[in-house]
């Protein structure tokens, strides 16, 4: 069985290499291609596209600013811990590294928007990490819990915004 399993990939590999590199389409595609060469480019107008990108970038900057505000507020909070119960387990610490689904979304963005998204994700996650540290010292602080949830929501919004921008750009590039 082990031998079979070993043989199959190498045989598959050999066969895959032998697949024909050249397959002619059943119909001549040139007339349709030539007709499209005359049509105006379907690529989005650069000015329109840029304004869209800048709008997306501005939205992301707003989210980041809001997160920074949260961060500053959390750092300045030294009030007494309110008595709370039943808030559930302490939130797990989540690193600021990008996860695979996020990479998929982010890699489809243009360089300038990608930089903004990554920077803002770092800011939001760093804010969350700070809140988590504060929560470790003061686990019953409901305000900190709310702040953590708000930061998490902002992170989700940021990723949604990036996904929307990616999809929207892909749609516009194709139409």
């Amino acid at each position, binding site marked *: 069985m082990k031998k079979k399993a070993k043989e199959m990939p190498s045989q598959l590999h050999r066969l*895959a290499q032998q697949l024909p590199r050249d*397959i002619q389409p*059943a119909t001549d*595609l*040139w007339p349709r291609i030539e007709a499209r060469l005359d049509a105006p480019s379907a690529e989005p107008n650069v000015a329109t596209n840029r304004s869209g990108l800048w709008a997306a970038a501005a939205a992301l900057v707003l989210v980041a600013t809001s997160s920074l505000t949260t961060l500053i507020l959390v750092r300045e909070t030294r009030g007494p811990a309110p008595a709370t119960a039943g808030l559930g387990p302490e939130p797990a610490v989540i690193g600021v590294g990008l996860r695979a689904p996020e990479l*998929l979304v982010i890699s489809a963005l243009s360089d300038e928007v990608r930089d903004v998204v990554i920077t803002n994700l770092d800011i939001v996650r760093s804010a969350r990490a700070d809140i988590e540290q504060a929560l470790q010292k003061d686990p019953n602080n409901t305000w900190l819990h709310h702040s953590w949830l708000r930061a998490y929501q902002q992170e989700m919004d940021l990723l949604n915004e990036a996904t929307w921008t990616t999809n929207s750009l892909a749609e516009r590039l194709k139409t």
Partner: protein
Amino acid sequence: MTDHKANKRGETATAERSLVRDAQRGSRPAFEALYRQHVGQIYALCLRLMGNVADAEESTQDAFVRAWRKLDSFRGGSAFGTWLYRIAVNESLARQRKSRRTQPHLYLVEASGPVGAAKEVQLDELEKAIARLPEGARQVFVLAAVYGFSHREVARMLGIAPGTSKAQLHRARQLLAERLEGPMAPTRKNR
């Protein structure tokens, strides 16, 4: 003989460079000649990536239209065919993202060169099995195993991590091995 082949390749490359230059200056006949030269390879790639004839034809058209519009950006750093391949991969993936068709389609492959009957059956079975693979596994298998792109290149093209590319290739191989066990068994016995 080797020199003759090398000379022939050199002549072809020179002729192609000349066609590219003419096409960059706006010559439609030159671009059509480039199309005729490369359409088989581009269509084969699109067919394998898309898994059905209709989308493969559309992607092939998209790729050549895009290539025409981006001709100015081709600086000759790589072969024209390689440049076209990358455009075709991008166009196919973009079309796939847009349509997100989940139903796999079978297609018939007509090999351009003469091959033995038994081998032809095996290759035909493999083509059909590739077309039935899940989208992600099919894309990785086609790009990495059939066209020889590295996992790094595949990852960049598909927007996934290199580790995911490796995992998808492993998955594709497993699925293909399961599906091809019957048709491929005689070859194993002969070894």
